[in-house]
């Protein structure tokens, strides 16, 4: 095993491979930073270029890009309030308010530090977990996956605001919205209002960009002035790095959450930042912390988790050939094209390839953090450019990001409708994260519920121990949130 690790390290650090790693990192920064583009589009574009490369070079290029989109997406999340990729939706909750306070550099310092840290922890956990995780992953069947979805919704619904009932209500509303289009079992069109566009369901990216980004654009246009609401810059990058080091325990916990949520096929990547954010809110003991108003821990938690998730998401792909996301499916395609088959082979005779993936993750994460820290102060100045210059750029990015969903004008109608909804919800103080999550999780939850019922009848509800544990955790989450809210109200 050590020999394979050593050989893979030499392979990645040898010349053309290391060059490809750097190229991948550069492209990853771009794909991460531009909203609407993500590791998925990056993989799809890069895949054909890897055909003629050796396995080390190919892994260096693909993993260099994939590993760090969740570091670079912080840039637009913090500066523009627009999530750079789905993995950094939660980052805007506190990252953007920090930028408004003139502390963008601090947010970047903290985010890059924990991103690199999370990425490395995720890679290490990937190595340690492969033998232990196989039985664990396989003990999760359709009923457990369904309840993981329920738990995710309950966590985000109940914890992401101070009104658990409202959070859960909008979460349910989003689940209802996610049912538009053909039903997964019988192919019957549901809630489509005779609009063919809706037959394929609501696309996620326009919904998220509309909910979170358009209200910010409107606000910036109304307020005029610059993104930063204060004239002079507040705390800088090194303060952020110190914040990250001071909160190392939170970062570590979130990295572990990230890696282990990340390996859940179909679920991980879309919820990991919210789960980590929810954990940060829930475990917070500092009475002065104001999440949602620029609390640095609200940046540290999701940023540590979303990089660690990258390692975790590789587990099912490498160990079972079961890709958990479209991005992983393309990576699997890359393996197959290079004649590398997932499963036992990657864990025995081609262990060096597995290690080359892990080394690429580690090295890319560290390089990216260092490079981006170097340009943090330049980037932070964006917040001092006047809004009238920033607004058209954000709008073009948001519209083009949405266009990539299905490349239909309907995407833009969805974007603007979600924007109107997001604007109202923001005004009334309704939590928006449950909407984004519900649209992502709805189809997955429905699918697993159906399989569970048709495979096991209803007996799975009380016969499977993991199901019972998940139900209890869900109830505890809702109970905790309701109790802490009523305490808060009594205190006032």
């Amino acid at each position, binding site marked *: 095993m050590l020999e394979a690790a050593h050989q893979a390290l030499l392979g990645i650090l040898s010349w053309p491979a290391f060059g490809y790693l750097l190229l991948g990192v550069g492209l990853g920064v771009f794909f991460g930073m531009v909203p609407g583009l993500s590791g*998925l589009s990056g*993989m*799809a574009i890069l*895949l*054909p270029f890897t*055909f003629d490369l050796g396995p080390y070079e190919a892994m260096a290029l693909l993993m260099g890009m994939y590993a760090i989109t969740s570091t670079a997406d912080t840039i637009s999340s913090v500066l523009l309030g627009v999530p750079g990729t789905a993995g950094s939706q939660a980052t805007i909750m506190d990252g953007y308010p920090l930028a408004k306070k003139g502390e963008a550099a601090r947010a970047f310092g903290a985010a890059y530090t924990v991103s690199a840290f999370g990425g490395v922890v995720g890679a290490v956990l990937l190595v340690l977990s492969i033998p232990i995780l196989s039985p664990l*992953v*396989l*003990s*999760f*069947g*359709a009923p457990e996956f369904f309840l993981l979805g329920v738990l995710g919704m309950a966590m985000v619904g109940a914890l992401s605001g101070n009104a658990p009932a409202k959070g859960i209500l909008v979460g349910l509303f989003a689940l209802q919205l996610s049912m538009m289009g*053909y039903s*997964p*079992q*019988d*192919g019957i*069109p549901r809630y489509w209002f005779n609009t*063919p566009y809706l*037959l*394929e369901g609501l696309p996620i990216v326009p919904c998220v960009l509309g909910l979170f980004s358009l209200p910010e654009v409107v606000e910036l246009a109304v307020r005029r002035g610059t993104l930063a609401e204060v004239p002079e810059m507040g705390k800088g990058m090194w303060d952020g790095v110190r914040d990250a080091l001071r909160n190392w325990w939170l970062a570590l916990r979130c990295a572990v959450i990230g890696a282990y949520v990340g390996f859940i*096929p179909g679920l991980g990547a879309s919820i990991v930042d919210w789960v980590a954010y929810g954990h940060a809110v829930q475990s917070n003991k500092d009475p002065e912390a104001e999440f949602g108003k620029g609390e640095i821990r609200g940046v540290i938690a999701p940023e540590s988790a979303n990089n660690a998730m990258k390692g975790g998401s590789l587990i*099912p792909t490498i160990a*079972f*050939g*079961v*890709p958990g996301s*479209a991005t*992983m*499916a*393309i*990576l*699997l*395609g890359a393996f*197959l*094209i290079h*004649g590398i*088959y*997932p*499963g*036992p*082979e990657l864990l025995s005779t081609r262990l060096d390839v597995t290690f080359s993936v892990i080394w690429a993750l580690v090295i890319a994460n560290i390089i990216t953090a260092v490079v981006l820290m170097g340009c943090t102060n330049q980037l932070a*100045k*964006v917040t*001092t*450019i006047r809004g009238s*210059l920033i607004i058209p750029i954000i709008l073009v990015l948001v519209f083009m990001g949405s266009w990539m969903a299905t490349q239909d004008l309907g995407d833009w109608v969805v974007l603007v409708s979600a924007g109107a909804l997001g604007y109202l919800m923001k005004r009334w103080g309704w939590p928006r994260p449950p909407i984004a999550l519900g649209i992502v999780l709805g189809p997955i939850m429905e*699918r697993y519920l*159906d*399989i569970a*019922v*048709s*495979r096991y009848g209803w007996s799975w509800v009380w016969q499977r121990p993991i199901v019972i544990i998940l139900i209890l955790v869900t109830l505890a989450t809702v109970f905790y949130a309701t109790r802490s809210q009523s305490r808060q109200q009594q205190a006032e």
Partner: protein
Amino acid sequence: MKSTLHVLSTCAVLVLALLLATPAMAADKPFYQGKTLRLVIDFSAGGPTDIECRIYARHLKKHLKGDPTIVVMSKPGGGGTLAMNWIYERARRNGTVMGCQTASGRYQEWFVGDPKSVGLRANMEEIIPVMFTPVVSVGVVSTKLDPPYKQLGDLKKAKNLTVGGFRADSSKDLKFRALFDLASVKYKYVTGYQGSAGLLSAFLRDEINYVDGSTPFYLTRVKPIAVDKGEASPLWYGSDENIPAIAPGVPARDFVKQLSGKDPEGPLWQLFQILSSYRQILAPPGVPQAAVDAMRTAFASMSKDPEFLAEYKKTVGIEPQMLTTPKGIENAMKPWTTAGDEMKQFRLKYVEQGRKQAGSK
């Protein structure tokens, strides 16, 4: 202000770089010269259709005259219906957009089914078939049946055979049901899985103990992960010729014969044959004949390219039997076009029966 200027000058440099990097375009003789050909794939990235189409796209450039840019686009959804409708309704009809699809199911739905019920709006009789390559599917059973599976005969003794599929009306599901019913094998039918990845993970965690898929799915994923460890065994494959790589699996006809003792026949067997599947290059109606011809010539020449063949064999596991002549394609489509109304009613009834079996009604 200084930072604004800085941003602007950076942008200007980028503009120049991009303009210089863009290749000059010229229109000349071969149809595809200076053009961009988009291949629209109807299943998600990384799946068998996608992998195969990307191999085509990669080698096609060499064989398609005029050295066009070839772009692969994924439009998954609705079991391939979304892409088919898009090609029919929205794609440009000038030869620059073609489908690289596994649209056999759409053809079956159109000729032998109820296209409306699945939202298929593309008129499959107007779609231009450019190239067909047969897909061979392989059925695999877990050895952890009760009693344990050791040889084909054990299948009929199994008390807990649980079969996983997509949807009662998908041709994949109809196909294994037809085979099992012809061989009088009893099974529990569970639907709702998404894609081969969903089926494989359910198979590995024993939620289902039968799974099938095309040869690349079998050879690159099921075989190394389960079959080589003795946890699963191939049962049948959809070809009349022996394929040693899939032993101890047998051709579908022999599978039925060995289990039921007689040669398969009747409407169910006819249905099974209608359900044969192809990777296809399809063009929207009205595409210039020159484009269709150029593509057919390119595929014909590609099917003799040793470099392509080596890669195809490595990934797909079998030699490609590309049909690039109108005659060959017409023959392949015959089971669909000549099926008739009786078969249609039979198929629809069989789908309903499947829904009931899966507990949907």
